[in-house]
């Protein structure tokens, strides 16, 4: 064995960072267990009743009675799982039904459901952009987008976050005759800011690129029909591929792509992350289809979610916290921490108050920031939001953040 290289040596820096963090005595921010979940907004964590403010469960559909009934019925009628790929034995009536629900929700011709949102980006990006093509993408793109680029053979060209001019310059430098795919997100989940899709998509189209927009963090509540930021800015008809997920507003798990491309259906045969994995369980697609159809008529819930977002943003700002955006742009309010140590201390102080938020740290964050990300839910009551602001104020003072 002498001279053998331990393949885990490469992880030593992160092992050390984690050990250093835990040595300071804080609870492990990445080892939290939800012992019981009481509702979309409350769980028992580490024996404490805790308000959930970091779940992306924007529309609170996880405990919707109709959604749960649909899942139970599908379990009874179709069993626990499909044990097969969508292109072999894994397409049940429920998979076609949820794809129809997506086509109706977005008003588009085609919908393809993947087993996770991660796989949707992985599959579509790596398959659509091939050797000799160029992917032009925002530097703050989600890991699933970067991994989709890595899995494929296209040339990958990033540009500065939301910088229209930087994107345009790069598009214009791409060699004549090469295929181009511009990849954008509606809402960027780290800071909760939105993209100027109207301007960016116009530039992309003027330069002959196809456009993919990930609307994971906008589905259900941004845009007149909840179709996302592209709809809100009036440019959904210019988007070639919308990527989305069932694991946020829809309230279960799964991913999808909707498109009007006339040849879209061929992707089912050539997209490896779609073909070489088992399809979603019948209960999951049944809950998703029911939830998506209910989200089409969720105007009141949407309005309440926006109210919550505005109230929390104003409350935290007024108490002196530094936030990711000047004004609330989505249901994500990101609180910027001075460094990882104090961010972890604040995270723990909040947990002791009975509040769960996401602790986000480098390298997942832009500009190496440490963030406490809050994602609001339409089921948070106005009273809960006030309670949350009070918890932030006490924890912020206790840890010296404010």
């Amino acid at each position: 064995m002498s001279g053998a290289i331990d393949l885990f040596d490469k992880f030593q820096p992160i092992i050390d960072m984690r050990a250093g963090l835990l040595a300071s005595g804080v609870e492990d921010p990445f080892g939290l267990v939800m012992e019981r979940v009481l509702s979309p907004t409350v769980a028992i964590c580490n024996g404490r009743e805790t308000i959930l403010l970091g779940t992306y469960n924007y529309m609170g559909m996880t405990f919707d009675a109709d959604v749960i009934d649909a899942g139970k019925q599908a379990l009874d009628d179709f069993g626990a799982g499909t044990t097969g790929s969508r292109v072999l034995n894994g397409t049940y009536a429920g998979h076609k039904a949820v794809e129809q629900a997506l086509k109706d929700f977005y008003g588009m011709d085609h919908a393809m459901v993947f087993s996770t949102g991660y796989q949707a980006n992985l599959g579509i990006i790596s398959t659509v952009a091939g050797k000799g093509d160029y992917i032009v993408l925002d530097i703050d793109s989600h890991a699933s987008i970067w991994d989709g680029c890595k899995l494929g053979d296209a040339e990958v060209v990033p540009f500065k976050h939301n910088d229209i001019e930087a994107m345009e310059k790069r598009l214009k430098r791409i060699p004549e005759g090469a295929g181009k795919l511009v990849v954008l997100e509606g809402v960027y989940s780290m800071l909760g800011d939105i993209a100027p899709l109207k301007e960016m998509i116009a530039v992309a189209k003027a330069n002959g690129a196809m456009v993919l927009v990930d609307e994971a963090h906008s589905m259900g509540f941004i845009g007149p029909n909840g179709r996302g930021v592209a709809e809100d800015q009036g440019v959904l008809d210019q988007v070639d591929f919308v990527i989305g997920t069932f694991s946020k507003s829809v309230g279960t798990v799964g991913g999808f792509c909707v498109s009007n491309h006339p040849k879209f259906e061929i992707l089912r045969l050539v997209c490896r992350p779609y073909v070489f994995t088992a399809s979603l369980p019948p209960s999951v697609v049944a809950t998703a289809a029911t939830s998506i159809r209910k989200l089409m008529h969720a105007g009141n819930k949407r309005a309440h979610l926006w109210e919550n977002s505005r109230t929390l943003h104003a409350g935290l700002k007024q108490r002196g916290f530094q936030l990711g955006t000047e004004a609330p742009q989505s249901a994500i309010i990101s609180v910027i921490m001075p460094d990882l140590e104090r961010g972890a201390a604040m995270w723990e102080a909040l947990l002791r108050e009975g509040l769960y938020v996401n602790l986000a740290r480098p390298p997942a964050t832009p500009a190496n920031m440490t963030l406490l990300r809050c994602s609001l839910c339409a089921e948070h009551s106005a009273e809960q939001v006030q309670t949350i602001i009070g918890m932030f104020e006490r924890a912020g003072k206790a840890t010296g953040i404010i």
Partner: protein
Amino acid sequence: MDRAATAERIAVLIAPFNKKGIAVTDATTFSGDLEFDSLTVMDFVAAIEDEFDIIISMNQQAEIETYGQLVDAVVRLQG
């Protein structure tokens, strides 16, 4: 543009990113010697791309570890 002229222009661009002011040679590495993190790489690559009106894709960046390799790549990419 020949290699010497290209290297001269890159030398000007690298100065603001060379925080420790080390002497840069063809063998200088970006991650090791210059201690560039991913954010610095992005800003530096963008500066080079804009100066020479070229694209250095991430695929090409993966092949560039030293200053000398960067100069060679920029000479090549200018055609």
